[in-house]
């Protein structure tokens, strides 16, 4: 069991049925294969409706899969033993209004079968860790969204789970709060915990995640380190050229036909051309091609692609 991956998903499928009389099927997941190793921080990316929440719900046992297999820490996803060992921070978290931070931790600790003494001992420490020290006796209904998010993170860590599933953990937080959450995640990685992160903020994922998966349309478009994904979906380098058309007006079409690129029209018959390239020699060849078409190069820029560009490429790859 200890050797088993933190999350192991094989050919996972989920079809929702909708409608009272004429049932319609909607395939939220279509044969997803995913492995999250122990001790790594794993980011799950995908546009809205990609199936991310469905995947998390299946892992937690909130919905049943239509097919395939999902294991958490070696136990079937959704089983009580699996849930005992995970900490979960849901998206749009809300706490019953009558709770204070202390009483909420007490309740969720009890639900996770944490001994009373441990709850008492750890509550203060955790609240300090998430930045809620001094506010622990206030009713949570008076908390800001960010404070509730911090409290949610504290409850997820209270029973020292082996795996944390964090759904939009920085949602509603200010830049300082986000930075603290990133620090916390880094600390958790240092403690050997596995963190499964679902976030829309790609820079954040890029900053903290060891590996990333991109999910779109219910299928997994790619899994790997950010660098691996960049190479796979975009190329290692990006060439951006500002140019002016001086000769044949068909030159741009000819350029488009020889190279997959993005063309942006600028004022005064000027254009911006962007294209991915895997190496410097490929860039040199490209510059030669532009010049042969009698296009003047005004500015030439060589950059590395962002995760957002990779993400967009992956999502639009079909």
């Amino acid at each position, binding site marked *: 069991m200890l050797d088993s991956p933190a999350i192991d998903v094989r050919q996972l499928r989920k079809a929702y049925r909708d409608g009272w009389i004429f049932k319609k099927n909607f395939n939220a997941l279509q044969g997803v294969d995913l492995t999250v190793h122990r001790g790594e921080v794993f980011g799950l990316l995908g546009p809205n409706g990609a199936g991310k929440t469905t995947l998390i719900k299946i892992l*937690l046992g909130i919905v*049943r899969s239509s097919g395939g297999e999902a294991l958490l820490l070696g136990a079937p996803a959704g089983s009580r033993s699996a849930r005992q060992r995970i900490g*979960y921070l849901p998206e749009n978290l809300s706490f019953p209004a009558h709770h204070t931070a202390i009483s909420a931790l007490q*309740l*969720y600790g009890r*639900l996770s079968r944490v001994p*009373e003494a441990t709850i008492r001992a750890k509550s203060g420490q955790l609240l300090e860790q998430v930045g809620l020290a001094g506010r622990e006796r206030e009713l949570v209904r008076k908390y800001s969204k960010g404070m509730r998010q911090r409290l949610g993170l504290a409850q997820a860590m209270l029973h020292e789970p082996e795996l944390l599933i964090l759904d939009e953990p920085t949602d509603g937080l200010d830049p300082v709060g986000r930075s603290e959450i990133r620090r916390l995640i880094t600390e958790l990685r240092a403690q050997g915990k596995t963190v499964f992160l679902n976030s829309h903020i790609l820079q954040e994922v890029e900053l903290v995640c060891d590996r990333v998966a991109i999910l779109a349309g219910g299928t997994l478009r790619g899994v790997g380190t950010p660098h691996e994904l960049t190479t796979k979906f975009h190329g290692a380098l990006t060439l951006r050229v500002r140019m002016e058309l001086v000769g044949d007006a068909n030159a741009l079409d000819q350029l488009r036909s020889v190279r997959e690129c993005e063309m942006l029209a600028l004022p005064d018959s000027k254009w911006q051309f962007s294209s991915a390239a895997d190496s410097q020699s490929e860039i040199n060849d490209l510059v030669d091609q532009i010049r042969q078409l009698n296009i003047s190069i005004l500015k030439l820029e060589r950059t590395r692609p962002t995760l957002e560009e990779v993400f967009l490429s992956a999502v639009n790859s079909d």
Partner: protein
Amino acid sequence: MKPYLAILIDSFWEALGNRVLWALLLGWSLVLCGLAPFGYITERSYKLSSVDIDNRSQLVENLAKAVKGQGGDSARAVAARLDASFIAKLKQIVLDDDAQRQRQFSQSELAEELNKVIAVRELYSEEAFPTAQRRERLAPLIAAAENASISPAEIEELNRELLQLAFPLELNRPQGEQLWVGYAGFKIADPLPVNRRQIKQFFEPILLGTIIKLGLGILAVFVAIVVTSPIIPETFRSGSLHLLLSKPISRIWLYLAKFFGGCVFVLVNITFVLIGLYFIAGLRFEIWNQGLLACIPILMFVFIIFYSVSALAGLIWGNAIVSVVVCMVFWLFCFSIGAMHDALLPQSELLTQMSRVRKVNENVLVVNERGGLGVWNAQFSVWQPAIQNEVRGPARTFGPIYDPKRELILTKAFFQTPFGGLQARSRKLAVIHLKPQAEGEHADASDVSPKTAAKAREEPVWPSELGPELPQQLFDIIEIGDTILAVCRGGLFKLDLDQLDARERSKNGLFGFKLPWPQTNAFENIAPRDYFVGANTAASPTQANDGCIIYSSGSLDHFALRSGKLEIVNSTRLDGDGTEAALVQMNERYCVVVRDNQPITILDSQLRPHREVELPDNQKVRQLQWIPATQDLAIVTHSGDLLKLTCQTGAVTEISSAFAGKCTCMHWQSSGKVWLGVKPSSVCLLDVNSATVEELYVPQPATLEMIFRWAVRPIYLLNPKPAALDTAMAYALSGNNSQALSLMTNDLEAVQMEVDIWTPVISNLVFVAVVLGVSCFYVSRKEF
């Protein structure tokens, strides 16, 4: 701590943190504080109040006669002490004008004028009140008055008793104590016309029951449903639910813990109010009723029934408003079924029960609780009305009395009002002549043959005549051998049957001429002078038919019939306030008195206490009759059992038959054979020695009964019955396992509704279990 216990405790704190709860508790506190100053105010007083005037018109007439020098000595003695201005007004009264007498004086004005007489010293004189000296209560007062050592309070008491002797039928019997409902020490309105026991009898099951039923059972439960309806939808909302479901707990237990946690809210409210009411009723009205505390779990159960529906709706639709609406629709459905059942039950099951049965000339005669006198029609197997029935609702029937010599049956049915009073179009006895009166008249039931069963249910077998008018305020009609005795407020009146013969002669005429019907009263008072009875008087002939036994106002009087007059043989007073409804029976060795909510009292032939007996299972007596040629008393209970009481030992045994739990009335033909009324409307002749049925008369059910039996009742049985838990509350409050149809129990023989606690409890338990089961299944399968 167990996770589910944590959820339950959390729900408790959630309930305590609810502002609505505190607002409600504050509201309840204000209501309880508003109720707390209510209480009794009791004063020892013999003064009259308006409620003591029983018959205003008659009192004015008698006073007017007295001031004009007419009427009895006692009335004239009272009139002589009246205020001069009042006497002047009385002299102007036209005696024949009842409306004028009614208009002239109000009850409180009359009470005020008579109270002036109560205060005077010289009202008593032996000439005016010759029987006063013989009265146990008056003798010492008269002696004190003659010695001039009488106190003002004693004068008041003596004069009030003398007023009662002067106007026995017009004034209610003096209680010696006046009772008011007070608020913060101030009296509200006039003194109450009832005593504490009667208030308790009314207060516990009816008033308190209604407050709890309406205030808590409907209003508080509805408020609780509105307040708790968001708990389940909010718990199962994605934000908080996903977090809960990620914990190692079962969904089903999570749902149940939240459900019962919601009940905590109501528990706090109900407990607060009922404990408050318990102390107010105890401290202010001296009614320490533990049943109030027993209502806490019952009301909780009522709430759980509705909340289970609300919670399921909240689970499915995730909306508190929809939950409340679904709950209201469910309540409306249950209410409709329950109301239909409750409306049809008395008509098809209770009022059809037999209260009398006897066989006359091969005709099986029965009287049902609707006052209908029926004869068995073998052709259609129905009870055919013997005569036209005037009463449609619950009735009290006197008779049927059969006179074999004249071959006539006498009977009279009165409609019983909700407060136990008796009403009828006329006070005349119905007379049925069984022998042919003239040519063409059919006298035998067998001669009458309706064409259809429906006709047989409606067409009377015999024509009836209006006989002599019964005296006012009738309590019972009994037969002492050939003597028919009407027990009335004003005395014991013997029916002169010769008057009936005279009437027949006048009808037949003499030499072809019709004779005038003699107008003299057919009832003659044969009681000792100044013998009057109070409310709820019970009477029966002795087993030897040589006299009668009468229980009235706490006194038990044994009369012997000698030379056409009744003479008191023995007399005693029983404990209690004397206003309870009662039944009595006496034979040569024992006298048995049954009083409402008290043990059976057995006395010896000298009316000395012998023993007291409690019936098993808190059963209540419905009918009493001596088993011929034995010293044993047969008892029919309101639970429908036929029991035998051995007076010597006090042992109560069941007389075995196939009709245990179904008996409604009895008539012993011999020591071994008894006619039994069997629920709902059958009759049988039972051989008690062999427990075999010799004759059985089971009528075909009428359409209404068929609808009730085959449609309404099955639906009602299957349907959840939250409102039927009222019966459990009524049982908890009163401890009675049967409940009178009228508000005040003043006739023990009247049909009572059996308090069935377990049927609604079981059906509601099954319903709650099914709804919670469906909810649990739904929650376990639902993908949130």
